[in-house]
C-alpha cells in the first residue's frame, strides 16, 4: 500500500469520524446529518489537495447523483494554493513555445495574480496585435492574463483517480454503492478533467460565448490570444473589475448591482433558451463587475449544451414553474430524459404541486420564489421515486439555483423565474408558429371556431 493511498484512507477515516461526532452519532435529523458529513467531505477534499479538490468541484455539478447537501457544500470548494515559483512557470512556457516568456511578451509579471490547484495566472503585455476568432483585434501592448497549467498535474490526477478506482472497487464489494454507477461516474469525471486541462477547449468555448453575446453590450467575454495559446497555456485579454465575491468595493465604486443582477439573470436565460450553450460554473469568483457596469464571464472550463428540441422542452418546464403547473413540468421533463413510471406519475404530480406551492410562492410580501429550495426538493423527489436524472438536467437545475444565489447576492429581491418570462414567451410563441405544429393544430382550431360561431 503506497504512502498516498494510506494518507487518503486516514483522511477519509478521520473525516468520517468527525462527521459522526458533528451528527451526534446520527441522532440529529437526517438533513442535518447529511450536512455534517457533507462539510467533512469538503474538508477532506481540501486536505487531500489538487485531484480531490477537482473531483469535489465536479461532484458539485452532479445533483443527479449526489445529495443536495453535498452538492451545495462542495460548491464552496475554493482551491487557493500557494503560487509556484516563477522559474517553474517559465519552464512550462518555454517547453510549450520553445522560448521563454520574455521573448513572447513585452512584459511578464513574475508574481502570480491568482493561483489554483490546476493552474496559475500571471499578468503580461502583448508584443504584437492579436486577432481573436470573434471581435476586434487586441492591439500591441494590451494587458493580458496568462493561465499556465502546473507541471505534472495531469499525472497526479490520473494516479489519484486510479487509486480512487481501487478504493471504490473494494467498497463496492461491501454492497454500499449499489445505487450509484461509480465506474461510469469516474469515467465522466476523468473526461471532464481531461477537457479542463486542455486550454484550447476553454479558449474555443470562450470564443463561442463571445460570438453568442455579440449583440449584448452588457456582457464582456475576454478575447483569446491564439498565437500565445497551447494545450497548457491560455492567454486572454485582461479585464478590469471586481469579482462578485468583492461586492463591497464594487458598490463603493458606484456599480449598479441591481441592474447587474437583472442583466446577469437574463443573460443566463439567454444562454439556456436561445444559445443552447450555458456556463455551468457560475460562482462568484468567475463573474466580474466592470467599472462601466457590465458583467464579465471568466473561466469556461465547465459548460453544457442543449439542442433546439431540448431548449423548447426547458422553456415549457420553466413555463410550468411560472404557472406552477406540475403536470406540464413532468410532461416536458420527460422530453429531457426524465422518465417516470406511469403508475407513479399521479403521486409525483401531487407532491410536485405541493412543492411548487411551498417554494415558488413567497411566504410573505417580502419573500419571492425560492428556486434553491424548489431545486433541492425536486431533485429529492425524483430520487425518492427512483427516477434516473439525466446529467444535463441535473446540471441545469443546479445552474439555475446557482444563478439565483449569485443574483440574490447582488439584489436580494430578484425573482429568477420572472426573468425567464420574456424568453419563455418568445420560445413558446416561436413553437406555436412552427408550420408542422400549425398544420397539426389547424383542423382542431377550425372546428373550435365553427363551434363558437354556431353556438
Amino acid at each position, binding site marked *: 500500500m503506497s504512502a498516498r493511498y494510506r494518507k487518503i484512507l486516514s483522511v477519509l477515516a478521520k473525516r468520517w469520524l468527525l462527521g459522526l461526532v458533528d451528527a451526534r452519532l446520527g441522532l440529529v435529523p437526517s438533513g442535518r446529518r447529511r450536512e455534517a458529513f457533507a462539510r467533512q467531505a469538503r474538508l477532506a477534499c481540501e486536505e487531500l489537495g489538487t485531484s480531490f479538490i477537482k473531483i469535489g468541484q465536479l461532484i458539485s455539478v452532479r445533483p443527479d447523483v449526489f445529495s443536495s447537501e453535498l452538492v451545495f457544500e462542495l460548491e464552496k470548494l475554493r482551491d487557493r494554493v500557494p503560487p509556484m515559483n516563477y522559474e517553474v512557470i517559465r519552464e512550462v512556457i518555454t517547453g*510549450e*513555445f*520553445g*522560448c521563454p516568456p520574455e521573448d513572447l511578451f513585452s512584459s511578464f509579471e513574475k508574481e502570480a495574480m491568482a493561483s489554483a490547484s490546476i493552474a496559475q495566472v500571471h499578468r503580461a503585455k502583448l508584443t504584437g496585435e492579436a*486577432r*481573436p*476568432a*470573434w471581435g476586434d483585434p487586441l492591439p500591441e501592448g494590451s494587458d493580458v492574463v496568462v493561465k499556465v497549467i502546473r507541471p505534472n498535474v495531469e499525472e497526479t490526477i490520473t494516479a489519484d483517480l486510479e487509486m480512487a478506482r481501487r478504493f471504490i472497487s473494494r467498497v463496492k464489494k461491501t454492497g454500499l454503492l449499489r445505487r450509484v454507477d461509480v465506474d461510469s461516474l469516474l469515467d465522466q469525471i476523468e473526461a471532464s478533467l481531461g477537457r479542463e486541462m486542455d486550454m*484550447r477547449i476553454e*479558449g*474555443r468555448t470562450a*470564443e463561442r460565448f463571445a*460570438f453568442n453575446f*455579440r449583440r449584448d453590450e452588457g456582457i464582456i467575454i475576454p478575447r*483569446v490570444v*491564439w*498565437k*500565445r*495559446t*497551447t494545450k497548457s497555456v491560455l492567454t486572454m485579454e485582461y479585464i478590469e473589475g471586481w469579482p462578485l465575491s468583492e461586492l463591497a468595493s464594487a458598490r463603493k465604486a458606484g456599480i449598479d448591482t441591481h441592474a447587474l443582477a437583472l442583466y446577469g439573470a437574463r443573460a443566463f436565460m439567454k444562454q439556456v433558451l436561445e444559445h443552447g450553450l450555458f456556463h455551468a460554473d457560475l460562482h462568484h469568483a468567475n463573474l466580474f463587475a466592470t467599472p462601466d457596469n457590465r458583467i464579465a464571464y471568466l473561466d469556461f472550463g465547465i459548460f453544457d449544451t442543449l439542442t433546439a428540441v431540448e431548449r423548447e422542452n426547458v422553456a415549457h418546464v420553466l*413555463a410550468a414553474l*411560472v*404557472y406552477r*403547473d406540475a403536470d406540464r413540468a413532468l410532461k416536458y421533463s420527460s422530453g429531457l430524459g426524465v422518465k417516470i413510471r406511469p403508475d407513479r406519475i399521479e403521486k409525483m404530480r401531487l407532491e410536485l404541486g405541493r412543492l411548487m406551492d411551498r417554494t415558488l410562492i413567497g411566504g410573505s410580501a417580502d419573500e*419571492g*420564489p425560492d428556486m434553491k429550495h424548489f431545486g433541492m426538493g425536486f431533485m429529492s423527489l425524483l430520487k425518492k421515486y427512483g427516477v434516473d436524472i439525466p446529467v444535463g438536467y441535473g446540471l441545469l437545475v443546479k445552474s439555475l439555483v446557482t444563478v439565483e444565489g449569485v443574483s440574490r447576492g447582488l439584489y436580494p429581491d430578484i*425573482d429568477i*423565474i*420572472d426573468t425567464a*418570462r*420574456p424568453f419563455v*414567451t*418568445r420560445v*413558446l*410563441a416561436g413553437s406555436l408558429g412552427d408550420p408542422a405544429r400549425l398544420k397539426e393544430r389547424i383542423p382542431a382550431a377550425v372546428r373550435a371556431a365553427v363551434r363558437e360561431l354556431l353556438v
Partner: protein
Amino acid sequence: MSNDFIRFLAAWALVHETADEGWKAAVSRGGEAGRGKGMEGGPEAFVDGLAAMVAEEKERLKEEIQKGTAHPASDSPADGGSMEEIRFEIGLIRARLETMETSLDKILKRLDEAGGRKAPSSSGEK
C-alpha cells in the same frame, strides 16, 4: 339580402371591435405584469405577455417604417446571422491554425537546438 349583408358587416365590425378591445386589454395587462413582481394567473398571463411583446415589436416596426429602415421579415437578419456564423467558424479555423503554427515553431526551434540548424545553413553555403 341587403339586410343580411348589412348584418354580416355589422357582425364583422363587432367582432373586429371586440377583438381590438380584447387585444388592447391584453397588451395593457401584459405590460403591467412585466412591471409586477411575478407572473401569476395561469396561461392567460402567457397570452397577455405575448400581446405586450407583439405590441412592442409593432411600435419598433412602425418606427422602422417611418425611418425607411424596415426589411421584410425573411430578409437580412437571418442572412446576416448565417454570414456572421460563417465568419465566426472561419475565425475559429484561423485560431486553430495559429496554435498549430505555434506548435510547429516550437518543433523547429527544438530541431535547431538539436543541431538541425546546421543543415539549412550548410546547404546555404553550397
